[in-house]
């Protein structure tokens, strides 16, 4: 369809670039619902006769895995097709996946849920995640960190909306014969389709060589070298790409380990009820969202390397403080420390596209970002596994449940140390190196 093509989305003179962030946020806010999917876990176990939490948990895992794969494989197509076509494709996959899942619930087929929310929905997540990011960086060459921070903040906010909305809708549709999950999936699919299509309708790409009025290229303003403009096939053969892959993987591994276990960890360490633990997890989601915008915006002033140095050094210190907050049983201090950690976890996600842009330019930054997101998929396995494995092993050795997480925190600090070293080794791409990889 012509209306979806990149050419049709080129902004007319007089277009206000501040219309692009709401388009990006609308898309990310919808697909970010995946973070809140856990609210369906228990209701889904009541759908099929033998459905268990581990079986249902696979839906989320498949979706996140497909997010990484889709972003990596479709990155070049996204760059070619433009943001509008990609957002519509993302909407079709994500909302279609919800509808397939609703059918799966009605037919009591867990495989339809794996296919629907997991595979098809997961592809929608990957497409929707990278689609608006490179567009935003092209509109905001003067503040790329802030621009991507706004979009990726929407993804963090998706859980804040999706989880309570899902619970309320299930309450609304619950009956003697149904838990209301299928109906909730259908309503969510409709609501998310409206928001995502709104984003697709208002998004625009800037005309070629467009620059914000009065803005000059960075090398004329600062000592930073001008980024090379290289494609995804060249970029991922450079040392810089893999160093950034490690940077993202380590930052996410450490943060996701805490975020995934937040509720249980708070209950175990401070003896609070599950409801209070759930409130703690919700609070962390706010800092996850806010950190994405705050730290990414800060990086426009400090440079990306400095801000990642803060994530890794300050983050490692904060991880080491967690066992102490447990020892003195200071819940408020524990909340402050973990909130700061999670804000930097979110910040790591939001700053990475701008870091890529600094190194490789904006030419195919969306596709390069897509390939880098595989680090997230790997981290999603490393982080929670480490936390689960170490705390379980500690309890098996006779350590009290309240203190079982302490060793994990030192391991997480070590993981951040690896990320710090990788970040230290990142250097601007030399012109000679650019020529070599382009050959």
């Amino acid at each position: 369809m012509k209306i979806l093509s990149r050419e049709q989305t080129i902004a007319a003179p007089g277009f206000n670039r501040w219309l692009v962030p709401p388009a990006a946020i609308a898309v990310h806010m919808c697909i970010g619902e995946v973070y809140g999917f856990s609210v369906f876990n228990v209701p889904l176990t009541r759908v099929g006769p033998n459905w268990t939490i581990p079986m249902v948990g696979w839906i989320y895992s498949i979706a996140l895995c497909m997010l990484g794969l889709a972003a990596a494989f479709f990155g070049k197509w996204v760059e070619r097709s433009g943001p509008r076509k990609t957002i519509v494709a993302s909407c079709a996959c994500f909302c279609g996946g919800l509808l397939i899942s609703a059918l799966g619930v009605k037919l009591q087929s867990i495989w339809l849920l794996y296919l629907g929310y997991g595979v098809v929905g997961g592809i929608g997540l990957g497409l929707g995640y990278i689609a608006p990011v490179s567009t935003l960086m092209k509109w905001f060459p003067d503040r790329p960190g802030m621009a991507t921070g706004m979009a990726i903040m929407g993804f963090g906010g998706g859980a804040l909306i999706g989880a309570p909305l899902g619970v309320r809708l299930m309450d609304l549709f619950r009956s003697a014969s149904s838990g209301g999950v299928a109906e909730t999936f259908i309503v969510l699919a409709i609501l998310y389709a409206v928001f995502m299509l709104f984003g697709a309708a208002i998004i625009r790409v800037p005309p070629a060589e467009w620059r914000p009025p009065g803005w000059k290229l960075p090398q004329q303003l600062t000592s930073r070298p001008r980024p090379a403009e290289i494609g995804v096939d060249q970029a991922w053969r450079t040392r810089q790409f893999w160093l950034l892959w490690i940077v993202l993987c380590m930052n996410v591994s450490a943060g996701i380990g805490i975020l995934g276990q937040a509720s249980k960890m708070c209950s175990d360490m401070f003896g609070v009820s599950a409801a209070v633990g759930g409130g703690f997890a919700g609070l962390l989601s706010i800092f996850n969202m806010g950190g994405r915008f705050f730290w990414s915006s800060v990086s426009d002033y400090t440079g990306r390397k400095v801000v990642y140095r803060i994530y890794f050094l300050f983050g490692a210190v904060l991880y080491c403080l967690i066992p102490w907050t447990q020892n003195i049983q200071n819940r408020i201090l524990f909340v402050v420390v973990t909130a700061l950690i999670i804000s930097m976890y979110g910040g790591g996600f939001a700053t990475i596209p701008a870091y890529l842009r600094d190194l490789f330019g904006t030419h195919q930054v969306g596709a390069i970002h897509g390939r880098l997101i595989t680090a997230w998929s790997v981290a999603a396995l490393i982080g929670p596994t480490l936390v689960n494995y170490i705390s379980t092993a500690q309890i098996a050795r006779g350590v009290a449940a309240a203190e079982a997480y302490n060793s994990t925190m030192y391991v997480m600090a070590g993981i951040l140390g690896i990320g710090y070293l990788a970040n230290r080794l990142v250097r601007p791409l030399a012109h000679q190196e650019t020529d070599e990889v382009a050959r």
Partner: protein
Amino acid sequence: MSQTSPLKRFFLILAWLIVALPLAWGVYQSVQRSIPLFSREVRIEPAK
């Protein structure tokens, strides 16, 4: 590329409201749920 007409300005504000209101609702829900975390009273989970 600057935008000055009142209609365009209205549309810009509307677009931001469309995304800001659901986000604000989500933040409000989470803040409400987290209030007990800061209360002095700690409810201990019953031993299982």
